[in-house]
């Protein structure tokens, strides 16, 4: 360990300047992630800025492990959660009770509980191909913005930030059951929106 450290000492500055370049390159993606979750440009800029500063400050503790971007991403996720907690303490997070509007979902089903003809889920193709498609991500972005704030927040905590529903309940002071209902709603709305905006245009 010590030997490695010594022989690496000369490379330290080159290594960190290389990492600075990587930070600059990954910044736009971090920003779009933060925007997806925080739904506010200025806040997203703050979160990314803080994450980048923390990454530079803690550069030594990273110590060349693989997956530098993943490590920075982890810092960003932590900063985003921090900002969200701050918003919550300030009372700036809407309460979760005011979004019981199921209309958007009911539109997808007939009275009988079967799919409406024009809402029937269609084949999206191979997931790898879907994720490689730049347009898919653009439509996803737009569909997230179209979601009500709280629905989007819970979805993002679960599916983008990777928290468990139990952790989400703790963060937002909601019951797990409520969380599952919100996620069901979010997924149905997103799938409909994605199918409409992306698949329809792709095949048009």
């Amino acid at each position, binding site marked *: 360990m010590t030997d490695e450290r010594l022989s690496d000492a000369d490379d330290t500055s080159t290594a960190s300047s290389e990492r600075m370049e990587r930070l600059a390159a990954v910044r736009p993606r971090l920003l779009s*992630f933060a925007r997806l979750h925080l739904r506010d440009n200025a806040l997203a800029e703050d979160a990314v800025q803080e994450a980048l500063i923390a990454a530079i400050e803690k550069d030594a503790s990273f110590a060349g492990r693989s*997956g530098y971007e993943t490590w920075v991403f982890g810092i960003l996720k932590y900063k985003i959660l921090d900002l969200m907690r701050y918003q919550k303490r300030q009372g700036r997070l809407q309460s979760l009770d005011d979004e019981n509007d199921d209309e958007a979902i009911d539109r997808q*089903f007939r009275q009988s509980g079967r799919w409406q003809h024009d809402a*029937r*889920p269609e084949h999206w193709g191979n997931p790898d191909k879907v*994720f490689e498609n730049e347009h898919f991500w653009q439509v996803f972005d737009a569909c997230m913005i179209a979601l009500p704030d709280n629905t989007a927040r819970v979805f993002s905590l679960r599916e983008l*930030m990777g928290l468990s529903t139990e952790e989400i309940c703790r963060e937002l002071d909601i019951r797990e059951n409520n969380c599952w209902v919100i*996620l069901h709603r979010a997924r149905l709305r997103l799938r409909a929106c994605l199918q409409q905006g992306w698949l329809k245009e792709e095949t048009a």
Partner: protein
Amino acid sequence: MMMCKGATRLMSLKQDRRLTFQERLSLRFHLSMCGACRQCDRQFSLLHQLGERFEADLGDATDDQGASPPDSDRQG
């Protein structure tokens, strides 16, 4: 019998917690008969992979040493 709307509730739940035996059984039964719901099930799974995918793609902007596999610390 469970209709599509109820089936989507279980498909969604499946991404967040382990279904009970009874839930799994009724979902499987419904999916075996309903092509539209099978597609919906795939769509929900795809949505569930978004975060990991986002993370895996991060390194692509700069990476020349191969991205490491994302840590699977997600539940469900």
